[in-house]
């Protein structure tokens, strides 16, 4: 245990200093918190507006979709908290910070991930929590060990999956010039897709956000499994339990992309 503390000491030191730095900019921080909160509320309102006009969409009613939104948004906010800065890799490249990472006796990706933390995402997480709680209250959830297990599994896997998306985006940016918008399509588009009932998706969307970037596994499928709702034709009911597999796949994709990106940056392959 002591060894673990010693080995993580440099990472904890940097993160702690980033936390302190962000909290010291008092006024800005409060403003950022408020903005995150409001943006989250508006996105929830968007979902609400659609679902109150139709009552049921893709097998989900308003109560169910609020739950999906809650799980997805909370998982995304927590992932954004720790990994959100990874897709701003071009900033690190331009400032030469990445070269400085090379000079330290630590893995590059780990240095990148622990180099910053976005505390203001906590406010966004608050929106997710509120939606999650509301969703749990509004729905007929068959409470028990199964339900709790499924939810916990979904949340943890969801955080891992979204975190992998940020890392993937960072790795992809080694290849793209000013490529932030291209990866945004899948990182933030992915977040948006995760709050939707996947049963309304067309086939290309199913391929991209169901399997390549497994967004459907972060919230929609677990909720469908939890509430015993009919899922889409291409996904059997028990897939909600496969969220961890989706997370593993997402991380595999992210790490491969990261390594390819680093190799491209260094200009070698052997």
């Amino acid at each position, binding site marked *: 245990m002591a060894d673990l503390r010693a080995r993580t000491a440099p990472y904890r030191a940097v993160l702690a*200093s980033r936390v302190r730095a962000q909290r010291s900019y008092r006024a800005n921080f409060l403003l950022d918190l408020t903005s995150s909160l409001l943006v989250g509320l508006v996105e929830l309102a968007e979902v609400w507006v659609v679902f109150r006009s139709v009552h049921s969409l893709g097998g989900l009613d308003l109560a169910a979709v609020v739950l999906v939104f809650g799980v997805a948004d909370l998982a995304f906010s927590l992932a954004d908290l720790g990994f959100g800065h990874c897709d701003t890799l071009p900033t690190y490249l331009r400032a030469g910070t990445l070269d400085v990472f*090379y000079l330290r*006796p*630590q893995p590059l990706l780990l240095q990148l991930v622990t180099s910053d933390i976005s505390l203001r995402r906590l406010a966004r997480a608050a929106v997710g929590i509120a939606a999650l709680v509301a969703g749990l209250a509004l729905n007929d959830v068959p409470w028990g060990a199964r339900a709790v297990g499924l939810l916990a599994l979904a949340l943890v896997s969801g955080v891992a999956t979204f975190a992998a998306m940020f890392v993937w985006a960072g790795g992809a940016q080694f290849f793209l010039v000013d490529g932030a918008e291209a990866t945004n399509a899948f990182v933030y588009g992915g977040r948006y897709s995760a709050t939707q009932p996947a049963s309304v998706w067309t086939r290309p969307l199913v391929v991209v956000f169901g399997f390549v970037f497994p967004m459907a596994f972060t919230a929609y499928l677990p909720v469908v499994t939890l509430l015993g709702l009919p899922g889409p034709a291409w996904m059997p009911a028990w897939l909600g339990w496969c969220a961890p597999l989706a997370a593993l796949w997402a991380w595999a994709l992210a790490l491969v992309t990261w390594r390819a990106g680093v190799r491209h940056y260094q200009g070698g392959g052997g």
Partner: protein
Amino acid sequence: MSTPRTIVETEGLGRDFKVRDGVRRRTVVAVVDLSLRITAGESVGYIGANGAGKSTTIKMLTGILVPTRGTVSTCGLRPVPDRKRLAREVGVVFGQRTQLWWDLPVRESLRILAAIHSLGSVAERERTDELVERLELADFLATPVRQLSLGQRMRAEVAAALLHSPRLVILDEPTIGLDVLSKQRLREFLVAERRLHGTTLLLTTHDMGDVERLCDRILLVDRGSLVFDGTLAGLSRTVGAERVLVVDLAEPTADLAGVPDARHLGSEGGGLRQRLAFDPEVTTAARVLGALAGRAEVVDLAVEEPDVEDVVRRVYAARR
């Protein structure tokens, strides 16, 4: 098999870049065919014009770039595969970018770096105290890095690079933009560090003053190739590098030709300002000035160092 005393060894090292030139793709050869050997305790100046391949070479030495050709070994390790181990043996000071945390006090940056390099608390304290004292950091230890002057920041950078007592220290343009006093203090520190700890220094610079005061050995690179490897004296002899004495006179005077050991380069303002070149191996600025005493009244003077571009050009010319 390299002995532990060899700090850097390269054999036929080369690096190409593919550059997009409009529609076509060009290959730019940044480093051609570099073979050199640096042993422990040496102090090497690596000079060349911009774009000559200095930064690329350093990146290959430290494992940031993979060579296109040839081999490289730093501190007995292969830079790319053994990057993390190498990081413990090497310290790098970049003139243009920072290793410190921008919005944190200097003390905080040093503490984090100590944790990164797994220094024990005793070693950390002793080494930090030593560096703080010798680099005179005490006055601004609590100041955030972004509020430091360039001179202060460079001293903090040097402390950061040396905190883990590396065997090899690479400095990339460390005195650029510094005033004369700061340059001098930094150079004195580096000389002392070498003496105390036997650290090997590799210094890239544009400033011949750095080279003169810090380096035993000079590597001169031009367009990716090593064109000179020897001592400063050797370089001066090869190149005939001169210093230029610029004197402002009290009144317009005829060209000051025929001054012993000095060559008249030119006059401005009808003879108010005159430039005299002299070989520092043969005479000094003071002596040249003295020789002018009878002939004109000097109200102001300056001494120009030969710049790196000039030296490079002369080396090239001398080789033909």
